[in-house]
């Protein structure tokens, strides 16, 4: 079991990990996902101490491996690492790459290291390549050798840092197949990946990283199908978001319209859909809410989900319960209701901006 307690990693100009807390159980296969620059690689490099954390603790079966006097070779024997760029020894043959560490560190005999190495090469589909040098192999083959080399140390934990992102697309499948096989072996695994379908297929847990930590932790179903937190949802659905704060009647309506136009252009949203977005925004904010709310701030958000070909316009505002359907601007409400594909209103008195109007607009070419 690995426990991360208030893990922090700070560089001079950035702090990718602010406060990471997690328990990784034996046998967990965890996909680490999230936008670029959110500390995913830093996290797994800290776990095996390739990067020394600037704060917090990492407990490996209860032993603090960040303690100053801890012998790191003990931890590294138990945690193997697969890198994006393979990191094979170019001057050694494939089988020598696999035999080196077991002989040097585990003190295995040459024969034993050879036999284990050959068995592992068969497992990753590379029997017959043992006497070749890395430069004679394709990228996918090199990565499979790198995985076999990690397995040669028989680690309990395997950390994989974007193992397929440096590969030609035609070779991704063969490496994924090996990792998939490995995921069923019962070893604890953490894999940083951008390939969501793959992540979903192999893991039992997902860490979504953002804002300097594990922002959401859940099963693949929870994270991919029902993300609970806002940034996770945006990332999973690849949402393109535009937000406005309308503070008073004098806000820049023309400027907001220009921003919506720019947002639609950047996201290649068709003109008919753009028309409805602007219409929804104008009818809700300008026509129905501002005359009633006066100085109560209004928050408007557009979310475009390219995969679902739809835009959601969400407008939230404070004050007493006010459903635009019950307001006196019937014409505006009728125009809005008929021009969009879905319109809902909800009120939650517990929230500061408890009134929420949500409109759905399906993409039309």
């Amino acid at each position, binding site marked *: 079991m690995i426990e991360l307690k208030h893990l922090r990693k700070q560089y001079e100009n950035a702090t990718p990990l602010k406060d990471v807390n997690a328990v990784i159980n034996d046998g967990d296969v965890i996909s680490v996902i999230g936008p670029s620059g959110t500390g995913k690689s830093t996290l797994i490099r800290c776990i095996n101490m390739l990067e020394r954390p600037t704060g917090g603790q990492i407990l490996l079966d209860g032993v603090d491996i960040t303690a100053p006097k801890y012998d790191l070779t003990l931890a590294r024997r138990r945690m193997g690492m697969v890198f994006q760029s393979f990191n094979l020894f170019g001057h050694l043959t494939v089988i020598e790459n696999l035999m080196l560490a077991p002989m040097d560190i585990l003190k295995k005999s040459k024969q034993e290291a050879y036999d284990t190495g050959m068995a592992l090469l068969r497992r990753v589909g590379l029997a017959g390549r043992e006497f070749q040098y890395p430069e004679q192999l394709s990228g996918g083959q090199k990565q499979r050798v790198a995985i076999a080399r990690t397995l040669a140390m028989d680690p309990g934990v395997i950390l994989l840092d974007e193992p397929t992102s440096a590969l030609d697309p035609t070779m991704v499948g063969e490496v994924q197949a090996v990792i998939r096989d490995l995921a069923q072996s019962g070893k604890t695994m953490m894999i940083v990946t951008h390939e969501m379908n793959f992540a979903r297929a192999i893991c039992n847990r997902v860490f979504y990283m953002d804002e300097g930590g594990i922002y959401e932790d859940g099963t693949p179903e929870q994270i991919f199908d029902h993300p609970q937190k806002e940034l996770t949802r945006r990332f999973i659905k690849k949402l393109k978001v535009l937000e406005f704060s309308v503070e008073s009647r004098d806000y820049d*309506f*023309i400027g907001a319209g220009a921003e919506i136009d720019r947002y639609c252009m950047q996201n290649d949203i068709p*003109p*008919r859909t753009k*028309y409805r977005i*602007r*219409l929804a925004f*104008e*009818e809700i904010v*300008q*026509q129905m809410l501002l005359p009633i709310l006066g100085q109560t701030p209004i928050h408007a958000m557009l979310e475009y989900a390219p995969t679902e070909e739809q835009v959601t316009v969400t407008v939230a505002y404070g004050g007493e319960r006010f459903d635009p359907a019950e307001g006196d*601007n019937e*014409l*505006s409400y*009728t*125009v*809005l209701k*008929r*021009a969009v594909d879905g319109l809902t209103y909800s009120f939650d008195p517990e929230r500061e901006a408890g009134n929420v109007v949500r409109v759905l607009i399906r993409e039309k070419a």
Partner: protein
Amino acid sequence: MLNIEKTTNASELTVALAGRLDTTTAPELEKEIKASLDGVTALIIDMAALDYISSAGLRVLLSAQKTMNKQGEMKVVHVNETIMEIFEVTGFSDILTIE
């Protein structure tokens, strides 16, 4: 932005619109139409260069239609496809005479 161009031919008034007819520009059109309807028996709203209309614009058309019902007729011409869709879904295509 909305550009309003008025042309009078005897008792026929043509109002050509270009740009956007929305919350910010509708009051301007309302003022222009109100000021010009005396003695007009035929009002033509030319939408050839109109890109957008919201409920604010529809309200102005509705009000002009009411006035013209008493003193003559009103026609909306050269409506583009997107605006026509808005007229249709809101039922305005049944209220207005669109050519």
